[in-house]
């Protein structure tokens, strides 16, 4: 291939629509937060913040795969709630049941993702209807199974992921297990996007016709994206359950949170553009924004409003940019 002239610019992963914009917003917010609360950046509070944010960051990564392929997953919040309740019931405070429960959660998450994927791709139901319907089914089923009141309890082994940390780390002090889980899975997610599957997934979101005519199994690829989202929800459920315990509110609002994070991170809602790093940075930024709201005494109940505003603003900007090309 002949290289005509090197276009001045940034490496591929950080180009326009890439990570730069969200990084800039993130830095601005960090500054604002530190101004309000100077010891936020202290290792203890920073580690704690990142550990608490791990679930939403993971959900954003899962949601990234679905959105970049051109679909939506609005069932993740309900899935997290359902898995937290189911885990508590299965474990019932018996430590020997910890790992089986984890396996059940992972399997269940993948299964729900598979069902979402099949209904959307084979029955051709628009994904937002499929996953909203799944949301209802999951919430109803979980309430049904628990007869309205969550039963059972977690074991210490289960809770450690969400709650415990490695002590005495030089400089950083206390590194939560959830943060370590996050880092490992985040690295896996990035590797996945760099793999053949990840590149094909973006192609499917950008132009499914071309993908199909190049031999890609479009339906299968989209279904796998849903399965990944379900798995992310399962891991998030383990972390959230460990940290906050059992409740029917465990996953409340997380689907909108993950979509907002993804949109903030520069991923186009129609698919075909954006990076998983951007989505994860978007999640961190969102959590920072909520922390900032907290410090200023703004009620947590207003979070949906903030999310709605961000989504509308980001999509309007993106639509403007693409129509002016």
């Amino acid at each position, binding site marked *: 291939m002949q290289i005509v002239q090197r276009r001045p610019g940034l490496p591929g992963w950080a180009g326009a629509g890439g990570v730069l914009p969200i990084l800039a917003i993130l830095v601005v917010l960090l500054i604002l937060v530190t101004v309000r609360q100077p010891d936020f950046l202290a290792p203890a509070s920073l580690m704690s913040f990142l550990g608490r944010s791990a679930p939403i960051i993971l959900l954003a990564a899962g949601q990234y795969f679905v959105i970049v392929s051109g679909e939506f997953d609005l069932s993740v919040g309900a899935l997290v709630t359902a898995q937290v309740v189911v885990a508590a019931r299965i474990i019932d405070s018996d430590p020997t049941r910890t790992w089986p429960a984890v396996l059940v959660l992972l399997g269940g998450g993948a299964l729900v993702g598979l069902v979402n994927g099949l209904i959307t791709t084979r029955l051709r139901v628009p994904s937002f209807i499929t996953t909203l319907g799944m949301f209802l089914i999951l919430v109803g089923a979980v309430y049904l199974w628990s007869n309205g009141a969550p039963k059972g309890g977690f074991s210490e082994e289960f809770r450690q992921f969400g709650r415990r940390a490695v002590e005495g780390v030089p400089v950083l002090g206390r590194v939560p297990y959830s943060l370590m889980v996050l880092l490992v899975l985040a690295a896996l997610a990035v590797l996945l996007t760099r793999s053949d599957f990840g590149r094909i997934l973006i192609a499917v979101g950008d132009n499914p016709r071309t993908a199909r005519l190049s031999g890609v199994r479009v339906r299968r690829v989209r279904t796998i994206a849903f399965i990944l989202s379900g798995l992310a929800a399962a891991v998030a459920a383990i972390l959230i359950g460990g940290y906050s315990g059992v409740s029917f509110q465990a996953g409340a609002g997380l689907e909108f949170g993950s979509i907002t994070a993804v949109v903030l991170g520069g991923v186009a809602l129609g698919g075909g553009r954006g990076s998983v790093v951007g989505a994860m940075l978007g999640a961190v930024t969102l959590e920072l924004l909520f922390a900032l709201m907290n410090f200023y005494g703004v009620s947590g109940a207003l979070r949906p409003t903030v999310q709605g505003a961000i*989504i509308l603003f980001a999509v309007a900007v993106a639509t403007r940019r693409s129509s002016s090309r």
Partner: protein
Amino acid sequence: MTAPALRSARRSARRSVPGVFVALALTLLAGWLVVAIDGGQLFNQATTVSLLHVAAGLGLVAVGQTLVVLGGSLDLSVAYVVSLSTLVAAETMNGRDSGLLPGIGLALAVSAAIGLFNGLLVTRLRINAFIATLGVGLLLKGYLDNGYDGPAGSTSPALVQTLGYQRVGPVPVSFLLLIAVTGACWFVLSRTRFGHHLVAVGGDPQVARLSGVRNDRVLVTAHVICALCAGLAGIYLASRLGSGAPRVGTEGLYDLESIAAVVIGGTALAGGRGGVIGTVGGVLLLASIDAIFNQLEVDAFFKQVIRGAVIIVAVAVYARRTLRKAAW
């Protein structure tokens, strides 16, 4: 549309309205049998009245949603508009009959404004309808969650008495209101230029534009009407509950169920085909299933599971065409 495409559209140009009413009749028949075997009674006065009340609330929202869907768009913010409307009405009325008209007026005005905002997001900013109305819904959700812990305001007693509980025989006044609103919408769709143009925009925005239809204006108007209907449903619910309720819209699943009713009633999710009469059939069908489950004393949570499944199945079966992206 190419000639072959038009030819295949011939196969799906069936008038589905009779279909939903047949399904309704069969459901009621099957339900009556099952309930009777279980030892209950499906068609006594109490259950009929209750069914019609449920149908009135959902029906008002669904009829408005029909217009928007016919135009090829969607409104996912209706549940929050309903909740907000109950609060605006009840708080303005403040328990006095003198507050009746201002309460209704303000609730409708607020609803219309939200509908206008939705319409502009979709037409001017070209945001996909699902995202736009979802975003607006979130905006409202935060406001409601933040401002209200529970019921607030007090509906005027006169309204509570009439719209909330008065009946003509077994038929509640609210259901009669639904019939009136449905009739009005049917009239608009069939006898006004706006109605004709709305269906054209949903059927093929390009063809509509080439024939001189003002696509943007038509869609914004449809969104305003949809929100007004949701607002009206809120006023009715306020009369039923006696106060405003910040979660009544979401707990009643008015967003998803209105879409399900629209789809079951024969209106295509992609737009261009269908009508409000079918939607009322869909609403009655959903309300009947609800009534049957109630009589069988089915667990409320199981009902929820079924509701979710019914919505998915309804769309999968009836809406075989996928949603088009905004094409105006």
